[in-house]
């Protein structure tokens, strides 16, 4: 296709051309910035949980009456809750999947400059593997005899053996087997030995935000004090969780002097983990789509106007031998040239916006392939927007030239 006449045509219609270019540039700026922000936000979004989260209930009670015996209460709670027919298994835990926030560094050595690896430690008893329905990948499972149980004051010792998740093993030991290896849960802590590797499950937002969602450690110990009371995780028979929740809460209220701080299906915990950023990103995406529609309509309008203005010229070209496809191609090419210029400026706008946003958020939003995809999308939308008026132009009868104005 020969583009010289298109350029000559654009020269005569500078304002229209400018209008289209600016519009495309701004749209590109807004669209790609929101898509970049959204994709960055959603990168670690809605990952597989690794656990049957629709069938697990979490209860977090809290004593306000200091005279109660937390250890005895825990014994009672577990016994009572397991007596509920549909409850398959229950375990106390210091953390809850999806909300585990207590991120620590784990080390392979004790030197001052040893590298730390981010993780979350779940302290629980031997039932936790079954409650979360984790599978054993390597080594052995923790047993009741591994579990260190007791009041913090009277139980100074800690469990010396731990299980780690598959991702954790991969990060710490690569392809080597993790079994029998020694790790340190803090620089100055006693070493612990890895006895087993279990399948991955989602820890919580803080590790998720770092792309390390599945790095976790299970330590077979249950310790309590008046200010440190365990959460409870219960797996129930499939599909019964919603109906059971009230019964389970009632069981926990049988212990007086405490308050059920949180009682929910892990499904809801999972939703909460994602819904903030999810809704934010979706807001931006919805706006982008609206903007895309508006821009599309605008381009259609402008092109339709050009077509109306150029009816006679189009007819003349047809009379001189232009095929319908030639006319279509004229408008599509003209638009593509403008789109291309607009996109180049738009990319500059995007870069400055994302740079600014990245500075503010301390997070890199830039992603070349997303940017290119957005540009492509905008171009396709533009082609669609021009298609209909161009089709109308192609259908202008060549006989129009013989009609006197």
């Amino acid at each position, binding site marked *: 296709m020969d583009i010289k006449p298109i350029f000559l045509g654009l020269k005569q219609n500078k304002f229209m051309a400018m*209008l289209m270019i600016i*519009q495309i540039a701004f749209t590109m700026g807004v669209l790609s910035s929101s898509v970049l922000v959204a994709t960055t936000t959603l990168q670690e979004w809605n990952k597989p949980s690794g656990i049957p989260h629709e069938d697990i209930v979490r209860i977090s009670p*809290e004593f306000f009456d200091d005279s109660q015996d937390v250890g005895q209460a825990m014994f009672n709670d577990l016994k009572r809750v397991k007596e509920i027919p549909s409850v398959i298994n229950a375990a106390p835990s210091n953390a809850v999947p999806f909300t585990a926030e207590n991120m620590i560094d784990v080390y392979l050595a004790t030197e001052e400059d040893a590298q730390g690896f981010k993780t979350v430690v779940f302290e629980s008893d031997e039932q936790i593997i079954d409650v979360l329905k984790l599978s054993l990948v390597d080594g052995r499972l923790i047993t009741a005899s591994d579990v260190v149980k007791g009041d913090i004051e009277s139980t100074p010792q800690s469990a010396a053996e731990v299980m780690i998740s598959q991702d954790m093993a991969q990060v710490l030991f690569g392809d080597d087997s993790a079994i029998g290896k020694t790790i340190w849960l803090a620089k100055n802590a006693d070493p612990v030995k890895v006895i087993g590797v279990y399948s991955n499950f989602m820890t919580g937002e803080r590790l998720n935000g770092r792309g390390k969602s599945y790095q976790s450690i299970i330590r077979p110990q249950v310790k309590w004090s008046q200010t440190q009371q365990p959460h409870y995780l219960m797996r129930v028979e499939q599909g019964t969780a919603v109906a059971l929740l009230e019964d389970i809460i009632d069981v926990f209220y049988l212990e007086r002097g405490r308050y059920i701080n949180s009682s929910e299906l892990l499904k809801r915990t999972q939703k909460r983990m994602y*819904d903030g950023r999810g809704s934010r990103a979706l807001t931006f995406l919805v706006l982008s789509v609206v*903007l895309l529609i508006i821009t599309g309509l*605008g381009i259609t*309008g402008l092109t339709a106007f050009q077509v109306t203005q150029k009816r006679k010229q189009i007819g003349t070209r047809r009379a001189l031998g232009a095929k319908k496809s030639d006319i279509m191609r004229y408008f599509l090419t003209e638009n593509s040239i403008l789109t291309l210029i607009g996109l180049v400026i738009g990319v500059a706008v995007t870069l400055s916006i994302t740079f600014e946003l990245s500075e503010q958020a301390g997070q890199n939003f830039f992603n070349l392939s997303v940017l290119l995809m957005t540009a492509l999308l905008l171009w396709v939308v533009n082609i669609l927007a021009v298609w209909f008026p161009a089709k109308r132009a192609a259908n202008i009868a060549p006989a129009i030239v013989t009609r006197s104005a």
Partner: protein
Amino acid sequence: MFSYNFHLALKSLKERPALTLLTILAIATGLGLYTTVKTMSYQSGQVPLAHKSKNVFLLQMDNREVTADAVEHQARMVDTTYKDTLNLMQMEMPGVKQTFNWSTYGILNVEDENINPLRTFAAVTNSAFFTMFEPPFLHGNGWDKATEESGEAVIVISKLMNDKLFGGRNSVGESVRINTHVLKIIGVLDTWHLTHKFYDRSFSRARPDNFFIPYSFAMQNGLPRRAGFDCWAANADIARSFRTENTERLINSECAWVTFWAEVPEEKFADYRQQIISYMESERALGRFPRELVMYLTNLNDQLAYVHGRNQFLNTFSVLATLFFAVCLLNAVGILLAKFMRRKKEVSLRRALGAKKKTIIMQHLLEVIIIGFLGGVLGIVISYFGLQGMMSIRLYSSDYTVRVEDVLPYFQLNWTMIGHAFLTGIICTIVASIYPIWRLCNVPPASQLKSQ
């Protein structure tokens, strides 16, 4: 002439209803989103206690050890130690009020076992809190100085707690328990909307405190302290434990954790400042405040401006909405141009028949103003729904742990914003129409009348 122009403008609006509608829609959508964001920004930028916010100051004194890092911004400076808090409270200055607070939490419960207990956040403070920060009372009052000095167990609860625990009746005089401590209710607050909960420096939104207790009671009974403890190296290892224990050690430490506020009239400001500096110097003589003397008295306006400027979501959203509006306006320019240029022939005929340029401009300007007016009205309607939508998103994204009543003020249109939106709509539409009208009124008379 005006009525003739008006008549022509109306006629031409009806001439190509699709184009007219498209212009109005383009403007309204852009304006709707723009107003949505502007309203959210405006509402969350509202300064609490607006009538005296410039006289309400946060006090921060740099008591840190010599080796500590320099602080670049007031927002990063440490708060006040407990002993300085008590010392400063002793130094009274006529016309100046001082208060302090920290955050705590507890499980509020009543004797009646059929009413489930509620875990909630609360503020520990002194009597001046109520006169300085002016929370609205539904029943009763705050406590007085004598009460707090005696360590009496009194409490002011929020309307929400009163509704939940007492069924909304006037509970003043009744007892309520925080965990196992029994306290006497002396006041019930009405709904207290602060755009940002500034007094504990969390600047959190839509999560109000649900009870208020005297500091003496809280310290004596070891209620938990929800604060960041900026401790010297000597205490750094046990800083976390200060949240729930080691009260004695905390009182005598150099740990800064209490937010300290002063309401100082303008004419007293220099004196008050001097008094603080003298205090710091006198303490320095006793071996404290080892660094170069740095203190901040920052009023609410400045603090809010800083916090508001760091709202990343609103900032991002504002940039996008402004560009969005710009695209919509460019769109409107295109459509208006298309609409007007169709009228070339008619205009050249009118010009040939004696219409002045000015008349042509007036005629089209009127048309544009009507479009801007309609775009403005529709835009405001759209922004109303936009704000409702944003509020639903807010509720959803906080997993419905905040209440509609607490969130609503951030998403509420008011007359200022409506007027603002309206003017913006009309002015922007006029700006958008300058070029199309200019093109049209420069069509030479009768140029279009020759056959082509």
